[in-house]
């Protein structure tokens, strides 16, 4: 750990966590979390005063170990806030914005959602058409967003809108924090192939946002959004799993406990997928080692791709393996859900929900382009829309 001040080594942080625990009552969840944030033990790699200590990111594990038995965050409901909004606010927010938003975001007092995709702007996010027009110290926002998880209980959203249609598409965008309680924000559940509604459509009609809710410069929205999206991909692909854990663990458990379901064909395919799951897990472990050794590699770009195809293949095998039981489904009821429940639901749900893994957070096709161009240095396809004003693009 060279080049790091003595004050921030593993032992010091452990001592701080122990001292914190001794001085605070975990019985009051919210007060405990607020105090933990104020003590810099929320995310130690954030700056002091913003829930962190300016310490290396990997030392967060030390805190988590010490505070394992205390109130925890709801990483499902808070996922967008913690994984996407927070790093973006930290990177591009003003001092006021960081001070205003990060604490309640972390404690879960305020939930966040993401207003990026639109019916006409999916993979080609930069072509989005939601307009933000300046009116004095305010912006007036009109448009429609989609695939917004948690919009119905969110206090805030991260929003990308078009502020200058005369510029080419990447340049006329601006990034905002949207007040989800503002008049003109309407949230409608969007039913998915699983039967439930994890996502929403959000209609924005004459929504007035103060200019102090702008994140980054006017016209700089695309660059700000990149920070958000890079963090999303890490969040989707980067969690550690133990050997034989995760989705492969679910299928393996069925396999072990139900010998009557076994066939030779399924066995061969299961073994093949087990190997793929294991090498993918190892690649993730190697990537995390590289990150903590301060040598971030390009491998991260690929983790989500692997995770998506593996989840889909495994969950498909799980349904097929169960035979007659695979013909059923646990529950088609149209209801809202707050998070992906891979392990609490049946195999049919897992199979259907996993279809989204290669679409959400960048389709696998777009991710392959990213790997090919940014990692392998291959040329991009000729672009016809790069220098054309957004308003003149064919649609």
């Amino acid at each position, binding site marked *: 750990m060279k080049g790091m001040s003595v004050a921030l080594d593993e032992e010091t942080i452990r001592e701080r966590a122990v001292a914190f625990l001794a001085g605070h009552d975990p019985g009051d969840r919210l007060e405990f979390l607020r105090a933990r944030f104020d003590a810099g033990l929320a995310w130690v790699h954030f700056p002091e005063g913003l829930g962190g200590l300016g310490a290396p990111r990997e030392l967060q594990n030390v805190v988590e170990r010490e505070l394992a038995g205390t109130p925890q965050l709801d990483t499902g409901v808070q996922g967008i806030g913690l994984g996407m909004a927070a790093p973006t606010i930290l990177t591009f927010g003003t001092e006021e914005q960081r001070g205003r938003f990060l604490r309640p975001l972390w404690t879960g007092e305020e939930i966040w959602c993401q207003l990026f995709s639109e019916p006409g702007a999916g993979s080609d996010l930069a072509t989005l058409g939601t307009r933000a027009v300046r009116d004095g110290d305010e912006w007036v926002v009109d448009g429609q967003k989609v695939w917004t998880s948690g919009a119905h209980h969110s206090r805030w959203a991260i929003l990308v809108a078009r502020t200058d249609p005369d510029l080419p598409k990447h340049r006329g965008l601006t990034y905002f924090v949207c007040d989800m309680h503002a008049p003109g924000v309407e949230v409608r559940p969007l039913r998915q192939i699983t039967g439930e509604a994890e996502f929403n459509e959000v209609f924005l009609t004459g929504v007035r946002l103060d200019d102090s809710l702008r994140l980054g410069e006017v016209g700089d929205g695309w660059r700000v959004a990149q920070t958000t999206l890079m963090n999303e991909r890490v969040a989707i692909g980067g969690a550690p799993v133990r050997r034989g854990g995760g989705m492969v663990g679910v299928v393996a458990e069925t396999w*072990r406990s139900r010998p009557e379901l*076994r066939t030779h064909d399924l*066995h*061969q395919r299961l*073994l093949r997928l087990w190997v793929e799951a294991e*090498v993918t897990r190892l690649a993730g472990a190697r990537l995390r080692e590289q990150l903590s050794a301060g040598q971030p590699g390009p491998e991260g770009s*690929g983790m989500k791709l692997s995770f998506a195809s593996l989840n889909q293949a495994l969950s498909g095998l799980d349904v097929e393996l169960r035979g007659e039981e695979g013909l059923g489904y646990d529950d088609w009821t149209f209801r809202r859900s707050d998070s992906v429940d891979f392990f609490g639901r049946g195999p049919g749900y897992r199979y259907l929900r996993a279809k989204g893994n290669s679409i959400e957070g960048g389709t696998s*096709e777009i991710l392959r*382009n990213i790997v090919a161009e940014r990692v392998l*240095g291959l040329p991009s396809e000729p672009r016809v829309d790069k220098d054309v004003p957004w308003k003149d693009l064919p649609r």
Partner: protein
Amino acid sequence: MTLLYTEVEEELRASVRDLLADRCGSDAVLRRVESASPYDMDLWKTLSREIGVAGLLVPEEYGGAGASAREVAVVLEELGRAVAPVPFLTSSVLATSALIGTGDELLGRLAAGEVTVALAVSFAASPYRPAGSVTVRDGVLSGQVRAVAGADVADVLLVPAGGGLYAVDTADATVEAVASLDLTRPIATVTLSSAPGREIAGADVRRALVTGAGLLASEQLGVAEWCLGTTLAYIKERHQFARPVGSFQAIKHRMADLWLDVVRARAAARNAADLLAAVPHIATDAAGAAAAEAGELAAAVAKSWCSEVALRVAEEAVQLHGGIGMTWEHPVHLYLKRAKSTEIALGTPGAHRDALAVLADLPAPA
């Protein structure tokens, strides 16, 4: 444990790579494969004696470097990247692993680069199916073993027979090179007709095959990396329809998928090397047995994955090079032949996956 490369490993890699760049370019390899001596024994001498790769696995007490499977794996990556025609895998990995733990006098001579040894089992043998058709009576061996890699350049053959392992002077055997799919690691038929053998007590052929299979994955990684890098350079240069062919999405997506396969191959190969390095020379307690089992599982994962990845990347390399990829002149066929041969060598991907049925507790149907 770490899945990364240590500084020492990177230094070793650099010295091997420099030597190979100097002495083992693809033109030189191509010229050699049809000559009378397909193995480059001058290069092998330099590698084994001056760089000292032959003694990596040999314990220090027998004059070796006392290094581990991790360093060996790095050497194999580089040898794979150059499809170098040297008997490192067969002598310094397979044969040496069989002797580790025996304290046999051959170990010191192997480490010094004085002898080259081959384990006289078919290169297609797997750790899971005991090989051997050689019989032994009173230390005299008879029988035939086909498809032995590295035998025609070995001074000594290690022959499994009657449950033991015997050292036989190559001069006392008939070793007949045969036309081989892999031009850079040809195989031979070994025939023993009442050949005198010296029994080596405590040798472990199965362990040698597990170690060989797990580390062959690193050689396959090197093959895959060369194929990926060479293809990448080619499709950036090659223009058709007034564009680099590498700018077409149909090509880019395939390259992205191959890259992802190679990223995972690297993690799998490193993991196998790391866990094989942790297996004690002689496992006597429960911890040793657990380490051996972890090494075996990691080897099975790495060999099954890396075999298929090396082959897939080599096949795609031929395809993406277009017509030039079909020519004898372009070296990519050497890599395809190496990849296809190593798919079979030391257990096919399917054989290793079958082993995982037990190792990972995924039992076969009754």
